[in-house]
C-alpha cells in the first residue's frame, strides 16, 4: 500500500521534472550552484582584454616583431587546441578564449627576436601537452603558458635570452641586443646597473614605464597594474596570491639581496624588474593551478616569492618567477589537501 502510494508520488515528481526540463527551468549541474552572468568564456576574454595595455607597450618598445611573435604564439595555441580536440573526438572549444589567452601570455613571456618555430613549438607544448593531455581546461596541473616558456628556455637557451634593446622604433630594423636589468644585476651587481641607468630614481622610473630589455610583457609595470586593477575590481582575481608573492620577494630581497650583509638589499629593484608583476598578477592567480582555500593561496604566493628570490640570488638563472610558479604548481594539490575545508556537519575524527 505504502509502496504503491510512493510510486504514484514518484511518478508525479518525475513528470514535473520532465516538464520543467522542457521549459529549460531545470538545470542539472554539479555544485557549487551559483547563479551569475559570469562564465568561463567571459572571464577568459576579459583577462585577454586587460592584457592589451601591456601588449601595446611591448609593441611600442620592440616594434612589429613583437606583434609577429605574439601572433605566432596565439596561432600555435589555437592550432594545437583544435588538432588535439579533433583527435580526441571532443567538442572544439576555441571560442572559450582559453587558448587565445594562453597564446597571448606565452607571447608576453618571449623576447622579440625569435625565429618563427620557437613560438609555434612552445605553444604546442603549452596547449597540447600541458593542458589538453591532462583533460583540457580545468584539469591541467601546471600553468600552460609558463610550461611552454620553460620548454623553450631549456631547449633554446641562447635564443630565449637574446634581448633586443627597447628603442621604440617602427622600422622593423634589427635592434641592438642587450642584457635585462636582472641579468646585469646577476652578472655585474647593483653598481653596474646604476651606472647603466644613471641614478636610482631614473632606474625606478624606467622600470615603471618599461623602458628596459626583457620579454614583451615584462616591460611596463604601470601597464600591467592597469590591467590587474581592472581584474581586481571585477573580482576576477583576489589580492591574496599577488600580495603574498610580492611581499615575499621584497622581504627576501631586503634581507638577503645586499652585498654588505643582511638587511641591506634593495627590495624595489627586485619587485619592479623581471617578470614578477606579470607572473604575480596573471600567472600565479590562474584558477586551475593555484590552491582553492584562502590560507592555501597565501602559502602558495609566499612560496612563489621565496623561491623566486632564491633562484634570482643563488641559482643559475637571473630570473626565477617562471620556475618558482611552476614548482609551486607541483605543490598545489598537496596544499589543497593540507588546508582541506571541513565538510559542514561532518563528525570530527577522534
Amino acid at each position, binding site marked *: 500500500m505504502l509502496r504503491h502510494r510512493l510510486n504514484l508520488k514518484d511518478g508525479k515528481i518525475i513528470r514535473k521534472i520532465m516538464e520543467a526540463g522542457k521549459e529549460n527551468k531545470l538545470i542539472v549541474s554539479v555544485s557549487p550552484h551559483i547563479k551569475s552572468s559570469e562564465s568561463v568564456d567571459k572571464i577568459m576574454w576579459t583577462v585577454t582584454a586587460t592584457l592589451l595595455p601591456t601588449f601595446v607597450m611591448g609593441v611600442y618598445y620592440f616594434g612589429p616583431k613583437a606583434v609577429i611573435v605574439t601572433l605566432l604564439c596565439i596561432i600555435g595555441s589555437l592550432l594545437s587546441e583544435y588538432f588535439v580536440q579533433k583527435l*580526441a573526438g571532443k567538442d572544439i572549444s576555441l571560442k572559450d578564449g582559453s587558448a587565445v589567452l594562453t597564446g597571448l601570455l606565452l607571447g608576453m613571456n618571449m623576447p622579440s627576436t625569435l625565429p618563427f618555430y620557437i613560438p609555434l613549438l612552445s605553444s604546442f607544448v603549452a596547449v597540447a*601537452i*600541458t593542458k*589538453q*593531455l*591532462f*583533460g*583540457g581546461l580545468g*584539469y591541467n*596541473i*601546471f600553468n600552460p603558458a609558463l*610550461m611552454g616558456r*620553460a*620548454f623553450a628556455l*631549456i631547449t633554446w637557451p641562447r635564443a630565449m635570452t637574446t634581448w633586443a634593446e627597447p628603442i621604440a622604433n617602427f622600422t622593423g630594423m634589427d635592434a641592438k641586443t642587450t642584457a635585462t636589468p636582472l641579468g646585469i644585476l646577476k652578472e655585474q651587481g647593483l653598481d653596474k646597473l646604476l651606472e647603466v641607468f644613471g641614478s636610482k630614481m631614473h632606474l625606478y622610473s624606467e622600470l615603471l614605464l618599461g623602458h628596459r630589455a626583457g620579454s614583451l610583457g615584462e616591460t611596463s609595470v604601470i601597464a600591467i597594474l592597469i590591467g590587474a586593477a581592472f581584474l581586481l575590481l571585477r573580482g576576477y582575481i583576489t589580492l591574496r596570491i599577488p600580495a603574498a608573492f610580492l611581499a615575499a620577494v621584497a622581504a627576501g630581497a631586503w634581507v638577503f639581496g645586499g652585498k654588505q650583509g643582511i638587511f641591506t638589499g634593495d627590495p624595489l629593484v627586485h619587485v619592479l624588474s623581471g617578470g614578477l608583476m606579470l607572473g604575480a598578477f596573471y600567472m600565479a592567480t590562474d584558477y586551475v593551478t593555484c590552491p582553492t582555500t584562502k590560507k592555501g593561496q597565501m602559502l602558495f604566493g609566499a612560496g612563489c616569492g621565496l*623561491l623566486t628570490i*632564491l*633562484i634570482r640570488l*643563488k*641559482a*643559475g*638563472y637571473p630570473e*626565477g618567477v*617562471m*620556475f*618558482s610558479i*611552476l*614548482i609551486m*604548481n*607541483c*605543490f598545489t*594539490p*598537496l596544499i589543497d*589537501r593540507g588546508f582541506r575545508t571541513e565538510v559542514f556537519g561532518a563528525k570530527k575524527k577522534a
Partner: protein
Amino acid sequence: MDKEFMKLFEIFIASALINNFVFTRFLGLCIFFGVTKKVETAVGMSITFTSVMMVSAALSWLVFNYIMVPLDLTFLKIVIFIGIIASFVQASDTIMRKISPGLYYKLGVYLALISTNCIILAVPLINAGDKYNFIEAITLGLGSGLGFALALIIMASIREKLELANVPRPFQGLPIAFVTTGLIALAFLGFSGIITQ
C-alpha cells in the same frame, strides 16, 4: 667546523633538490610509479625508504672503508653493496615481523620493494666514488631519502587529483604519470646552479 657544516648542508640540498634522484637522474622510477597512487602509501614508503637509505649508506661506508679498501677489493663494490643492502633489508624485515608486528603490517610491504632499488645502490656507490667521510655519507643518504620522499608525496597528490581529470584514454594511468614527471622535472630545473661544486 663552519666550513664542514656548510659542506654537509651543500651535500644535503644538492641531493634533495638540485640532483633529486627522480627528477634529474631518473632513478628509482619503478617504486616512484608503483607507490604513488595514494598519498598514504607514498608517505609510508617515504618513511621506510629514508630510514633504510641512511642505515645502508652507513653500513656500506663501514664495509667499504674498513674491509674493501684495505683488502684491495674496491672493484667488487657493486656486488658487495647489493649483498649488504639486500641482507640488511631482509634482516630488518624478519626482525620487524618478530618485534613489532604493527609496524611490519604498515611498512613491511615497502621493504621488499626497496631491497632491489637503484637509488639505494646509487648512494653507496656515490659515497665510495666521491670519497665522502662517514658523516657526509649519512648526510647524502638522508638528503637523497628526503628528496625521494618529496618526489613521492608531490607525485601522489598530483595523481590523486588526476584520478578525477578527463585524461584522453590512451594516456590514462601510467602514461600521464610519465608526462607529469617530465613536466615536474622541467620545473625543478629552476634549482640548477644553486650550489656550484
